[in-house]
């Protein structure tokens, strides 16, 4: 069942791309395009929620191996970053919770946003946001989490600035994206410190090596990730 983890963030990503490209090329526009857009968004996220629930059930039944490695993405000297996911524990529980909530949000928004200017843009960004959040919680390494983190940050900006003709919306969106950069800096330093002190950026390896870190090292890494989470 570990293989399902790939589809959980992938389905909303595909939905975001289909809606985004369809809208860009004028295939999904206006009120006639609302039904396909809504269908794509809802089905992809609902499927993602079902898959994440299956993953959770499988994990609870003890059928998951705990992680899935799809291969090497980047290697440089001692640094190697894999495309890997965690398929057990709080990661899966969070993914299931998030996918279910996202399904409800999309279901509500389909009715609420009907005939609203920017309907298609909203669903494209919301699906991308969902994909990024699922990537964030399921990624097996800090770099993958950071990617999800960044994409969800951009999506937050785009969603807050949804009504971009209103100065207040754009001002708040800009404020958020700037503040998020502080978190980014802390996140990147945290990743760097992990690598310097443990030679790995995989969450499971980091967890296993936590005991070997000195109090100062552990505190430094924890502070960086905490700061990132706080802002």
């Amino acid at each position, binding site marked *: 069942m570990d293989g399902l983890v790939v589809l959980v963030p992938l389905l909303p990503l595909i939905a975001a791309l289909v809606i985004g490209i369809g809208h860009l090329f004028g295939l999904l526009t206006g*009120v006639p395009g609302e039904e396909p857009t809504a269908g794509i968004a809802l089905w992809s996220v609902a499927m993602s929620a079902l898959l994440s629930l299956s993953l959770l059930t499988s994990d609870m039944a003890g059928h998951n191996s705990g992680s899935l490695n799809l291969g090497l993405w980047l290697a440089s000297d001692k640094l190697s970053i894999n495309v890997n996911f965690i398929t057990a524990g709080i990661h899966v529980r969070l993914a299931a919770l998030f996918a279910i909530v996202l399904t*409800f949000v999309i*279901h*509500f*928004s*389909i*009715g*609420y*946003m*009907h*005939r*609203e200017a920017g309907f298609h843009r909203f669903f494209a960004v919301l699906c991308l946001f969902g994909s990024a959040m699922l990537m964030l919680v399921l990624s097996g390494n800090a770099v993958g989490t950071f990617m999800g983190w960044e994409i969800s940050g951009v999506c937050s900006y785009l969603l807050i600035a949804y*009504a971009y003709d*209103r100065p*207040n*919306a754009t001002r*708040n969106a800009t404020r958020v994206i700037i503040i998020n950069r502080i978190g980014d800096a802390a996140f990147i330093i945290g990743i760097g410190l992990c690598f310097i002190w443990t030679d790995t950026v995989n969450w499971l390896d980091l967890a296993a090596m936590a005991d070997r870190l000195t109090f100062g090292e552990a505190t430094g890494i924890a502070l960086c990730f905490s700061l990132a989470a706080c802002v």
Partner: protein
Amino acid sequence: MESLRERVVEALDHLDHILPAQGPIADFVHHNTLHGYQHLPFEAALAAFESLTGTRGYLPENQFREYHRQGRISEEDLSDALVCKCAEPLTEVLLQFRDRTIHRHDVYRVAMLYELQPITVHQFNWNVQELNALETVQEDVPDSVRRLLLAPQAGNTEAPCRQGPCLESGVIQRLWETVLNKLDLDDGIPHPENMLDLIPEEAETWLNRVLTGTTKEPALSVHQETRQHVMNSLHELLAQVGDSMTLSGFISLLSGVDTFELIRPQLMRICGSVLDAGVAAWHLPDCDRLGLYRAWRASLNFDASPFLYELHDWSSILEQSPDDPLDAIAVHLIALDVPETRWPGYLRRLALELPGWSGMINWRQRHAECPPGAVAPCSLADYLAIRLTLDRLWLSQVCLEIWKIEPGLASLESYFHKNLSEFFVREQLFRGELPEYLAHQAEQLIERAGSERHHRNDWQRLSDRIRTWQSSPMAGQGSKFSVTDQGWRLFRLFQHLGLRREHVETLTQHHMIGLLRELAAFPGAVRLPVWLHAYERNYRENLFQALHCNRRQGRHGRHVPRPKAQVVCCMDEREESFRRHLEELDPAFETWGAAGFFGIAMNYQGVDDTYATPLCPVLIKPDRKVLEVAKPGQGSRLEAHRKGRRFFRRLDDALYHGLRRELLTAHLKIDFLAPFSLCGFLADLLLPGTRRWISARMRRMIEVPVETELVFNADNEAGPDAPRVGFTDLEQAERVEGVLRAMGLTGVFAPIVCMMAHGSTSQNNPHEAAHDCGACGGRQGGPNARVFAAMANRPEVRSLLAERGLPIPHDCWFAAAQHDTCSDSVTWYDLDAIPNALQTAFARVREQIGRAQQLSARERCRRFVSVDALATPLQSYRHVQHRAYDYRQVRPEYGHATNAAAFIGRRSATRGLFLDRRVFLISYDANQDVDGKILENILLTAGPVGAGINLEYYFSTIDNERFGCGTKIPHNITGLFGVMEGVSSDLRTGLPLQMVEIHEAMRLQVIVEASMATVDGIYRRQESLRELIAGAWVHLSVIDPDSGEINRFEPGRGFVPWRPGNAMLPGYDKSEDYYLGHSQAIPPVIIRPPEAGAGL
């Protein structure tokens, strides 16, 4: 000081006319958005409002042009409108050619239909380079004119090509060259990339052109000319402080620091607290004792927000502020050096910066008695005193930081008189009109020098450069004529008139100037009323033709001895389809229309209400109260009912307030309530119908229903004027008689007469009350129908009615019901009181009404996007029911969005017409109203209600952002009294976008079936009606009840006869045969009566 206070009071009183008059959103009452301007004629009022706020009172011209393209405005409408609205003779010949004559009408028509505005250099370059504007005929030139332009010209030997693109290019190029030639222009427009900076020679040339063209002293140097120009600008800007600008606006323009943005959150916090109607846990301490301003002032020293400590000299400014808000306003205005003559304008401008909040404070000040439980008194003086205090605090900070001066008009004037260059640089930079290279220099200089006290030479050099740039074509300046203005406009005009070079060559510059003058004499402000007239005419002509064709036709010609039922609905245009379907289903049904409070003006207190609410038009102050009480023998059920109600109230309180307010227990409550709340939330989202059913069942189990009756009888000895509970028998008879005679329902009474009030129920809809009955003060009218029916069924009242010549047969029963215009469901009242002998008749009536509900729902569904809902009437009915309880639904119904006209007359004139839910139908029989008193009363009560609804929809549609409250999506309910966008916007008044998106914005056509003499007499007697009619806020027409002739009232001209066309109206067997397949507004048609006997 006393005279100063009086001046402030006078200025504040005047604000009542310009601020939004909308009250708390839970009691939404439609009203004319420009109520303060209603004493002016419509067009003058719109012009006055535009000059004050910059908001235009018409649909954008492009929208009208789109209507013209769609055929919604015909050529005939346009021509008629031009004739009616233009003072100049339209047939006057402006240009005479050998083969063509151009009249003023032709030029005006082109100006109406096509854009003839000047364009910028960049737009011109785009047109030339990307759209080939100098080689091809303009894209919007119609084919017929295009053919005229490109037709081969006999004897034209110059043209190298005689067909195809080559011909087109030649024709257009030569036309362009000729236009430029006639205006002495060359087309040397520099490319934008070459205009990033000016070379000295160009700058000198352009500046000299400007100096030659605009000043009498061409010998002035650039610097001198700049100083002179800047001095004038400074004086102009200073003169605007007051009527057009506040001091914070002035400083914002010169510093880029918008202090209002800093003040706004503070103001909203304070206003939200004082206006709160049940959300806030904490209110401003002592506000009810001290009033808003004093309480705020007293609380400042203890404010947890540390904003004051960041401000300069805050304590001394606060110490200077008097205790009284009026004194405080005067003191601050004096401190800011605002001349006394400008105080009214200054205060108006301050109030208009947040019109929603100012309007709500003003409403509360003028309605101190409502809503019950209002926490504290407040007034506009409080609000403006706080605003001015905050203004002074922040302006003082900004002025001292930047210029080291006090924030006052005099000190600012003195400072900038000495530092003109700085004024000019700052003004140009913060207006945002400078090109990037100059803006960059200005920003650097401001950062480096701060003020002109330092680096004076740099300031002067930069201001000279800016002035030089302003004189260049890039800034839109130039000599007498310019390529992008006069050249371009005439070029387009000639193409649309179908004039070629050969024509233009025969013209002199004098002709060209003449044409430009014609265009200047016909600006947008003149064109828009013409468009509106044409738009309205189109609908009016269709409606009049329908009424004309329906005369003595259709169902009303058939005499039904005694109808099976008479259903009296509210005059509301939404009931038109319901009534039509009922009559279509069974011609033995009659429907009638009256103002939905049915003549019962009362304060009504339901069995669950804590206080009474007035149920009547807002202009009436009811002095009779009606109570709903439990029937005798229901004591134990009532106790259980109240217990259950208390339980739900506590639960709601725990869910919606306790969790926010209680520090210690909130966590426990969340843990306990979360699972239930989650289930409810998921059910709302995924299965709203099931959830509704379950919660209704649960509610009925816990909050046991109790049978009720009305207390509406008063002691017959009671005095006539005393406010009291109930009506005497005589008063009841008078009310019942009044309504029946007003409708003309005095002859045959059906066994069942159904009084059908209306209301609307929807979820997650802050504007729900806006869908309720306007004649009931924006509330549901069910209790009025119930009281009326109960009165009309009383033997005492019937015998009094018989004595007054209005006998109602014993076998006639008045039933009461309420139609939900959102879900199309009908709630019946007091069914157990219906006599046994009439139960069968009533059951048949109820069944037919049930069928009409479904058909009406189906007709409504055609305007929604959900096509599936149209499959069968039952599906449509289910669909509208679903809309009513769906939390996601932002368009539960379209409310009054279809309103366009009001018909006051016999139903026979409109019965059998498909009026598309667009016409208020008020029953009135002129034959029973010899002296016109009934009509006068109808016009006085229904007129303002209809006009208020129509005008609110009109304004909210034409500019939804300014007059309406924008889209519902970002709306937040604020303190249960209004909506805001997010958390820091103005309070949004007017109607949301979703309520007006299908509305056709035009003034109400009021059609009265009565003699002209009667209507004319009423018009002369009643000033309030004269204001509406003579001011053209509504359009009045009269149909003669005997001859059927229609006369239109035209302000300034009186009644003008309307001439019917020859066209016959299409006929359909059923309404749905016509409307199915259409989702837009459709013109009236005739619904043919069924064959004799069918449906009877």
